[in-house]
């Protein structure tokens, strides 16, 4: 096991990793920007280094300063969390070059999965169903030929993409040229890589992802699926649950089998998530996230497995302490993201000081947060303040528990997503379960119209 781990992140996930390290008896080093000096993730770590000013380019993405902090403090490993440098193969490589274990898969796998077109090709080769589509298209003419073959509507996607950037839906041939130019420009601006590929546009699919763990000795297990179909119009997830409701048993098993097969095929190690679009009885591989996900707690609560501890154990060379047969689930879990955002104004992020902070407690409720009464929300970072997770014996009991948890939550000083999420939970269609990714934007539009 490692002696000391540098946590290359901030916020709730930095605290989450700090908890896992401390429970494993591993010392921790936090990094922080000048804007985060008062943050809980700094307070709870054994050591902490300021790595730069508030803006992420100069602090949380500042590779030399972060690696330097790890070396100076005598760390033997780095946990990247999610976001920031978590899927940066170059960062993993530099860490490795300096004798630091990167807690995640190998740089080669990060790199292959990070390039969406490559990932799709590799998965197809491993027998994983992928959305009908092309490899990288050189220009708009090639895109037109391919789109005609696939049949409209299609999606233009950036191979370096993520978070919906460099992505455009095209419903008819005459829209293609403009969409191509826009997507290419956006991708170039966001990722310094303007390469695009074409994919069949699946209308209102469900977003279902499978959690896997793979050790460095050939051990691979899945920890079931999560339904992340409740996404804001920006495609950011807002409410997640596990298991996915109303999923045909055969389809569920197929998802799990495909995930473990693919994990083995690409030589994956550590924790990872394969994202699928599911529509009717069909599933299509979308992408593989080579890191811990924000929504990992819903899986932890029903499997009783600490995924972050497993990440660290795997990176330290340990074999998984369980096989697929040892894993079973209890009940249903649901997560709500409490963001400092205004749901009545396009989820515009809000910064400020939290005057009141009261989180829920009691049975079946887990809160992961880095904020507290009096904390400031800096303007530089992700707007997530907390994850509230509820577990119950059934989906309905988990939802009811979440409703009472949200009713107990009081955050003042900034606008949050708490009340909006409570409205979602109360909606009969959500309650029935199994909605697609188009549901939440439609709900939002209905709600806005009603106000």
């Amino acid at each position, binding site marked *: 096991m490692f002696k000391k781990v540098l946590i290359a992140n901030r916020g709730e996930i930095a605290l989450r990793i700090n908890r896992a390290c401390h429970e494993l008896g591993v010392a921790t080093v936090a990094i922080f920007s*000048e*804007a985060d*000096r008062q943050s809980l993730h700094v307070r709870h770590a054994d050591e902490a*280094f*300021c*790595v*730069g*000013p*508030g*803006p*992420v*380019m*100069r*602090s949380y993405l*500042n590779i*030399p*300063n*972060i*690696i*330097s*902090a790890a*070396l*100076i*403090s005598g760390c033997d490993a780095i946990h990247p969390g999610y976001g920031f440098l978590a899927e940066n193969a170059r960062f993993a490589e530099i860490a490795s070059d*300096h004798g630091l274990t990167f807690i995640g898969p190998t740089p080669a796998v990060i790199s292959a999965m990070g390039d969406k077109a490559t990932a799709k090709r590799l998965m197809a080769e491993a027998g994983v169903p992928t959305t009908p589509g092309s490899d990288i298209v050189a220009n708009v003419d090639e895109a037109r030929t391919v789109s005609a073959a696939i049949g409209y509507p299609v999606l233009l996607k950036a191979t370096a993409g993520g978070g919906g950037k460099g992505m455009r839906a095209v419903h008819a041939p005459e829209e293609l040229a403009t969409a191509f130019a826009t997507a290419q420009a956006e991708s170039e601006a966001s990722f310094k890589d303007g390469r695009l590929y074409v994919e069949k546009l699946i209308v209102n699919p469900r977003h279902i992802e499978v959690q896997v763990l793979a050790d460095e000795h050939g051990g691979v297990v899945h920890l079931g699926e999560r339904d992340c179909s409740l996404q804001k119009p920006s495609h950011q997830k807002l409410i997640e649950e596990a298991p996915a409701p109303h999923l045909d048993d055969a389809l569920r098993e197929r998802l799990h089998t495909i995930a473990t097969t693919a994990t083995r095929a690409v030589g994956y190690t550590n924790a990872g998530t394969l994202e699928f679009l599911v529509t009717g009885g069909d599933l299509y591989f979308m992408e593989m996230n080579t890191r811990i996900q924000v929504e990992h707690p819903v899986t932890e609560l029903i499997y009783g497995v600490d995924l972050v501890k497993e990440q660290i154990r795997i990176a330290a060379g340990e074999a998984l302490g369980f096989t697929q047969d040892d894993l079973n689930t209890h009940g249903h879990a649901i997560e709500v993201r409490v963001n400092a955002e205004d749901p009545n104004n396009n989820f515009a992020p809000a910064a400020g000081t939290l005057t009141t902070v009261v989180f829920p407690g009691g049975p079946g409720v887990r809160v992961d947060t880095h904020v507290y009464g009096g904390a*400031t929300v*800096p*303007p530089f970072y992700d707007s997530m303040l907390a994850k509230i997770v509820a577990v119950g014996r059934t989906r309905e009991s988990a939802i009811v528990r979440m409703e009472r948890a949200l009713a107990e939550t009081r955050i003042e000083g900034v606008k949050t997503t708490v009340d909006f999420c409570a409205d979602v939970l109360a909606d009969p269609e959500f309650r029935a379960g199994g909605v697609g990714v188009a549901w939440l934007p439609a709900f939002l539009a209905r709600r806005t119209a009603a106000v």
Partner: protein
Amino acid sequence: MTEDVIAARARALAGALTEAGFARLRVRDGDTEIELRRAPGAVSGAAPSPSSAPAAAAAEVADRPPERRVEVVASDVVGIVRLLRPAIGEGQELDGDRELAYVETLGIRNPVRSRGGGRVSTVFVSEGQPVEYGQPLFAIDR
């Protein structure tokens, strides 16, 4: 104010300055006034990488009376302090902009410059000492 207090207050104020997103901050406290200005290049996210960022963040501290201007030179990288040989010492007069030390980060030596003349009133660090971003290295009486 002692140099320790100057350093501590300068760092605290620098944090507040950054959080607030302002370029200048002045605090009067009894007889003492501390003024901080953000170093011209150290603006929000403009620099693509820290090694190409301009010279160290500067914190200017003015104590009055007597009329005295102390400027604190801080590290803008995380690394190990390498003093010059012979090392710049307290009391040393500087006749203009010059190198005071290096901070070594992953084998790269990041020069620390005085950005003007004056008298070195305090050396906050010693050879081989690890420093974080924003950590005071030298105080210079202008």
